[in-house]
């Protein structure tokens, strides 16, 4: 094989990589171009602060942004302690057999289809929430974020677990030598050492819950009001896309969907930048 061949091979491998990068950009450009008419002339601000009422010519998506934020942060709020507990259990506290079992279950849980969480949520969780609080329909922020918490926990647990396991063994031996109990080891050695991993787990799951469509669409009720309590029905940006997609391709309603896409894209980029930042801080 000659040098020419090597060059060609590199080129052949390079092109798909380039194509994938172009794809990433193309998605952004598509959202921008299609959504532009709504944002021209400084109307972007109006778009993200206004409310949604196509009947009155208002295409603001502020309620959806609030809804997305509410559901995502509440689900992380639920999932974080749960994941911390489970990860501690798996890495430190549980006996070996149970730890292995839990570890495999968590791994397997990452493979459960989202639509199944939504499906069971409608028939199992929503009626419970409705009966429990006696207020509203049960399709609300709380139902969606509880289910979402269950969806993102496995990812969070796995990231936590990996960072717990990465703590150098010598540190643990030192703690053992000082007569530390497992809990002391966890609280004073492992968790402080694994801070970076914990941050990454939280940010990563935040990204997942911001981008989830099905659970919010099926369980959050999709109302267009700005949420006032966790029992209010809300619509997320993702669910808004799914609901409005069907409109006229030339209407402003349809264009607003691309603004949602753009904002979700932006959220995602922000999450990646944050992850990178945390990662780089850790390696210094």
């Amino acid at each position, binding site marked *: 094989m000659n040098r020419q061949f090597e060059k060609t091979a590199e080129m052949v491998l390079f092109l798909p990589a380039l194509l994938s990068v172009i794809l990433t950009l193309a998605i952004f450009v598509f959202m921008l171009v299609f959504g532009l008419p709504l944002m021209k002339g400084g109307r972007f601000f109006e778009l993200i602060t206004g409310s949604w009422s196509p009947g009155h010519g208002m295409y603001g998506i502020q309620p959806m942004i609030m809804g997305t934020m509410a559901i995502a942060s509440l689900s992380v709020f639920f999932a974080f302690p749960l994941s911390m507990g489970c990860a501690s259990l798996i890495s430190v506290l549980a006996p070996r057999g149970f730890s292995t079992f839990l570890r495999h279950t968590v791994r397997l849980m990452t493979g459960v289809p989202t639509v199944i969480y939504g499906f069971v949520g409608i028939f*199992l969780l929503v009626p419970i929430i409705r009966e429990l609080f006696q207020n509203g329909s049960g399709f609300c922020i709380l139902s969606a974020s509880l289910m979402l918490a*269950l969806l993102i926990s496995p990812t969070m647990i796995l990231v936590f677990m990996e960072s717990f396991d990465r703590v150098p063994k010598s540190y643990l031996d030192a703690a053992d030598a000082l007569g530390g109990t497992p809990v002391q080891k966890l609280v004073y050695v492992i968790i402080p050492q694994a801070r970076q991993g914990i941050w990454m787990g939280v940010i990563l799951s935040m990204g997942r819950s911001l981008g989830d*469509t099905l659970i919010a669409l099926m369980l959050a009720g999709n109302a267009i009001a700005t949420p006032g309590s966790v029992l209010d029905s809300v619509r997320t940006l993702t669910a808004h896309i799914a609901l409005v997609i069907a409109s006229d391709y030339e209407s402003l309603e349809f264009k607003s969907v691309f603004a949602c896409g753009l904002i979700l894209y932006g959220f995602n980029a922000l999450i990646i930048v944050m992850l990178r930042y945390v990662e780089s801080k850790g390696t210094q």
Partner: protein
Amino acid sequence: MNRLWETLIKAFSWACGIILLGAISCIIGYLFMKGAGVIRLDLIFGDTPPLDAILLKRQVLDGLFPAMAGTFFLVCFSVFTALPLGLAAGIYMSEYAGGSIRRVFSFSFDILAGIPSIVIGLFGFSIAVFLHRHFSDRIFPCLLISGLSLAFLVLPYIIRTTQLSLETLPARTRLTALALGATRFQNIRYVLVPQSLSGILSGVVLAVGRCAEDTAVIMLTGAVAMAGVPQSLLSSYEALPFYIYYISSQYTNPHELATGYGASIILLGICTFLFLAAFMIQKGLARRALYYP
């Protein structure tokens, strides 16, 4: 730290473990309680003889067969589209890319991997509308568009697993062939890729699972309530996850709802199977590599 705190922390962790296990067993238990009764052959084939249905001699009108066939074609098409691209890009990233290209590329793959699937679906949908308007009026949201969008969705997974399993090869493996005079490409072709095959393969299997379960992309790009087994890449189709989503809100009688539970169990089964397969491939091959170094 006093004893009380210690006990509390322990209790809290155990409680978390039990809540997680309890929640997931509730979900799966509930699914099986409601759906186990309908898991029969006629759930899939209705009253059509199974052989006729599989050979496409007759259409299945009351079963899940069209949805399963739709999901099958969709997964095949998207994985076969994404695989060559992803493999090549992954190999390039691991073996050739350097400096600023590497930084920019890997940043953009991270972004691509994080884009919510509904945004990918929106992208696919707008491409379909764009093509319909400007190129051919035979193009509309269909199997082809969905398959491509799903391929975009799993592309970064395949790139990343390929890159990762190549990069984690030990230096010994990496350098031997080169020291013996192999070229860079020969080294990749005959040493590195075969050695990291298990990692790559399990990544691919996970990508298959991701394609099979995703609903947000296909609901925007061509999955419909009723279409029969797709006849071409340009036709609308049914798919399992979309069927479950559709039934969840639009069931008209208890029987249809029960079919929804049945479909959920089947989808859960498929995804679990793929997941275990990925796990076995990784583990099995790792063990073989250990025994025959």
